[in-house]
């Protein structure tokens, strides 16, 4: 296979501990190798440029039924923002909900090479896999949702961890899923009746189990199995003023639990898009930032990781398995609302939303996300995200990086807010002068996410043996630059390699790559009770047969299985 030598770039790699020194990176046979191991490489001149490992996104809604609802029910999202086919690039469309082809190309252009689909409804897993298969270049995996699943609710009511673990292992295999995702635990099942669970002690109608029991039980089951990633949670009460207490209650469920994973992660809980969960006050009028309280907790508990969920001030499309929240949102903005409840498993909602700089609440949300990043004492545990497309489209990641790295850029945006003074009163951002540096950015977008996913043996760094995922940005950190230069450089990578194949050359996409779909195969001891429960529920309550449920064969064009042995 091809050999490459990326010479003379300013390397930022938290795995090797390189903080901008000039170094050469060598790729051979799909992997990073010692520079001495390449004999006749194609040389890429990276002098004056920034070199990092390929980006890793722990949470984005890019493939699956609710994403496609977002596409199909928003023709206006495609109007005038298309990119015609050219060269090897197929045609691309969609601004906030891009087509799968555009998703692959746009992530690649930003230097991202691994993207995890944040929520996969198990009954629809086949659809998620079809879309991932049609997303070029990127390695992907998808998280099946468990927090409103009838099997989980029934087992965890009696704290049956072993049975829960057996079911998780079975479902991961049946759906070819990667991790345990929990969205609005209990609340989306309540939404099956039009109700909700608004705090961790609110019992689920009929099932009579609390969100706290669900989250704690799933953490325990996840550690019982020793899965690569931790339990990944979107807590109850998203988006409501005063919800930061629910978030802290949720965080506390992880206390005292140590990770049991051979995959190198240190956390037992990953909480996603924390911005939406960091609100104080008790109504939209007095809503304020509680990012300080949130980060005080995160900073002092190293068994938690978070991603930001940064608002980008765009017109975008919200979509989440938090069905009741989406209904609440449409009642607020009166825009079109799609809802899809899934038998025995979960639900979802999709509503367009315009984050306007002239609306005080939107501006406060924008501040909160950045505060989370800037107040973090450990960038290896605080990741960049926009909960794409909920808080904004992923193509804004370079803009988020710019805001984190430049106080000037933040002040420029603050000045542009219509209610600037009220916004500053309700938040902490104006008083923060920290500027995140490129090394920390690499921690927040590469090394940190890879480690949290249990994939540090493949992604997130430039150490020999890791996958040949390398990006070169036309950005010289040692020359004077304007904040917009950061955004421009990170929006359009000069060179990109994925698994050792050159994807971008001189900013042109030159290959559709050879994407892989990662999934976790957890081996557990035989569990006849769980298998009997599964058979029974399929017979009586599901509308598809058990034999037609599992995703097999050609749906994953290039599967990559992570084996876990949980039989001890």
């Amino acid at each position, binding site marked *: 296979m091809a050999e490459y030598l990326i010479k003379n770039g300013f390397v930022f790699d938290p795995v090797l501990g390189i903080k901008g020194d000039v170094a050469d990176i060598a790729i051979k046979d799909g992997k990073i190798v010692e520079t001495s191991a390449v004999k006749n490489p194609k040389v890429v001149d990276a002098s004056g440029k920034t070199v990092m490992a390929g980006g890793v996104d722990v949470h984005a809604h890019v*493939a699956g*039924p609710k*994403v*496609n609802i977002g*596409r*199909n*029910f*928003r*023709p206006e*999202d*495609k109007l005038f923002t*298309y990119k*015609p*086919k050219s060269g090897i690039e*197929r*045609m*691309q*469309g*969609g601004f906030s*909900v891009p*087509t*799968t*082809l555009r998703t692959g190309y746009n992530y690649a252009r930003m230097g991202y090479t691994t993207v995890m689909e944040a929520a996969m409804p198990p*009954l*629809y897993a*086949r*659809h998620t896999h*079809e*879309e991932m298969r*049609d997303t070029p270049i990127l390695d992907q995996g998808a998280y099946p949702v468990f927090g409103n699943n*009838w099997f989980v609710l029934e087992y965890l009511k009696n704290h049956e961890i072993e049975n829960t673990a057996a079911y998780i292992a079975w479902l991961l295999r049946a759906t070819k899923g990667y991790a345990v995702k929990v969205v609005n635990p209990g609340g989306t099942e309540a939404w*099956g*009746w*039009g109700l909700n669970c608004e705090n961790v002690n609110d019992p689920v109608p*009929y099932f009579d189990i609390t969100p706290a029991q669900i989250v704690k039980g799933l953490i325990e089951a996840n550690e019982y199995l020793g899965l690569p990633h931790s339990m990944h949670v979107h807590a109850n009460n998203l988006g409501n003023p005063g919800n930061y207490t629910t978030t802290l209650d949720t965080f506390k469920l992880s206390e005292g639990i140590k990770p049991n994973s051979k995959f190198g992660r240190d956390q037992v809980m990953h909480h996603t898009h924390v911005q939406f969960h960091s609100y104080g006050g008790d109504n939209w009028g007095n809503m304020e930032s509680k990012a300080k309280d949130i980060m005080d907790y995160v900073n002092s508990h190293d068994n938690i990781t978070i991603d930001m969920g940064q608002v980008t001030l765009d017109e975008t499309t919200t979509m989440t398995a938090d069905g009741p929240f989406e*209904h609440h949102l*449409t009642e607020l903005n009166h*825009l*079109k*609302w*799609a*809802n*899809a*409840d*899934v*038998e*025995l498993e979960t*639900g979802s909602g*999709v*509503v367009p939303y315009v984050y306007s700089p002239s609306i005080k609440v939107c501006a406060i949300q924008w501040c909160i996300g950045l505060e989370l990043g800037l107040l973090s004492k450990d960038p290896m545990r605080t990741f960049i995200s926009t909960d794409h497309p909920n808080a904004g489209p992923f193509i804004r990641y370079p803009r988020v990086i710019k805001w984190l790295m430049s106080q000037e850029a933040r002040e420029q945006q603050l000045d542009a807010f219509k209610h600037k003074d009220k916004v500053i009163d309700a938040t902490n951002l104006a008083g923060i002068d920290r500027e995140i540096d490129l090394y920390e950015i690499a921690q927040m977008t590469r090394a940190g996410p890879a480690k949290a996913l249990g994939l540090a043996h493949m992604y997130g760094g430039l150490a020999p043996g890791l996958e040949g995922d390398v990006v070169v940005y036309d950005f010289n950190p040692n020359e004077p630059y304007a904040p917009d230069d950061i955004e421009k450089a990170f929006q359009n990578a000069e060179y990109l390699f994925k698994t050792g194949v050159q994807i971008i050359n001189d900013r042109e996409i030159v290959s559709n790559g050879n994407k892989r779909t990662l999934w976790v195969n957890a081996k557990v001891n035989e569990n006849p009770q769980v298998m009997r429960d599964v058979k029974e529920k399929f017979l*009586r*309550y*599901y*509308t*598809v*047969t058990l*034999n*037609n449920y599992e995703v097999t064969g*050609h*749906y994953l064009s290039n599967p990559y299985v992570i084996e876990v042995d949980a039989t001890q």
Partner: protein
Amino acid sequence: MTRTVTDVICPFCGTLCDDLEVVVSDDSKELYEVYNACAIGAEKFLHSQAKDRITRPRMRQEDGSWKEISYDEAIEYTARMLTDAKKPLMYGWSSTNCEAQAVGSEIGEAVGAVMDNTATVCHGTSLIAVQDIGIPSCTLGEIKNRADRILFWGCNPAHAHPRHMSRYSIFPRGFFTGKGHTGRKVIVVDPRPTDTASLADIHLQVEQGRDYELLDALRVAFKGEKLPDVVAGIPKERIYEAAETLKSGRFAIIFFGMGVTQSLGKNHNIDAAIAVTRDLNEYTKAAIMPMRGHYNVTGSGQVWGWLFGFPYAVDLSRGFARYNPGETTSNDLLRRDEVDAVFVLGSDPGAHFPFSSVKKIYNRPSVAIDPHETPTTEVCKVHVPVAFVGVEVGGCAYRMDNVPIETRKVVEPPEGMMTDEEFLKHVLARIKEIQGV
């Protein structure tokens, strides 16, 4: 000797039953029996065994007769037709698998075609409504397990989706619905006294073409406002009664079909029905679901959704995807003479389109890919028979509630017959050769 294949998915309608059992010969060459299917589904399998099936491509001659041609010649004709045309229409896609739909999409991109599916004469108007107002919906299992107020508006599942009521909507005993149909109330809105209406607790015989007004009246009733004495032929007392019946349930579901998607107002009727569902969510849990006709029209909408961003009527002629029913829909394109070649796969516009459109297909270079002889194949220049998806080849299909199920191959196709996917892959390769890419 025979063997029985279980968990077979029926490739006929949007109900997509997956509990069929098919008895085939040991060598899988013959199909004998079908169990659990409705009469239509059973026939879908059994008629594949017809001895007079067309098994090879054929081309219309000058004198009107058919002459058998090879698959290679059919591929050549198709590739040339598509590359010669300035704006070909590639229509159908509803009775085939997603794998074929994906290859077809690549062809469409390569030749700048307009891609359209059977929604264009069926639930396309529902899709337009969803684009304007959204859609609170769910999977069919939610109906089975929770719903106790069932409303069929402008559809007749007793005839069009025969096992729908027994598998999902009226009769099943689900997790929270142990009493089966005795715990449910059924409302039917239909100008006709149909077989479905005979099962209803309330049958509103709406005046034809006035469904939009009746739906508006329901919303007025929800808000407690005054109604005129009669709306759409229904006295206001019955409208208030229907509104209360829906509000008093724990979970209301509205199923709807062509009675409203293709009558006066079309998408507006569906829009109003979705508005009714939205309003109901202020009082109880409510959802709405279209009764999709073909077994994989939904899949076609999903595939184009993730590749192009639109579920039907997708114009690729400028190298990017554009969409606007009324302009990019098949019948408008044909009526206005805006397309210069017609490719049909997996549907029968000859039977379903206005005759004036069918004449346009006849007067153009045209190809039909279909296992059957149909009114469409009769007006096309080339007819290519292919294997039946779900019978002779597997592949993914999407149910009316968007749940994807992998159909099965239960029996071998006739010797030497291609599948849709194979044929399309050959056509795509030939097109790339012609275009020199």
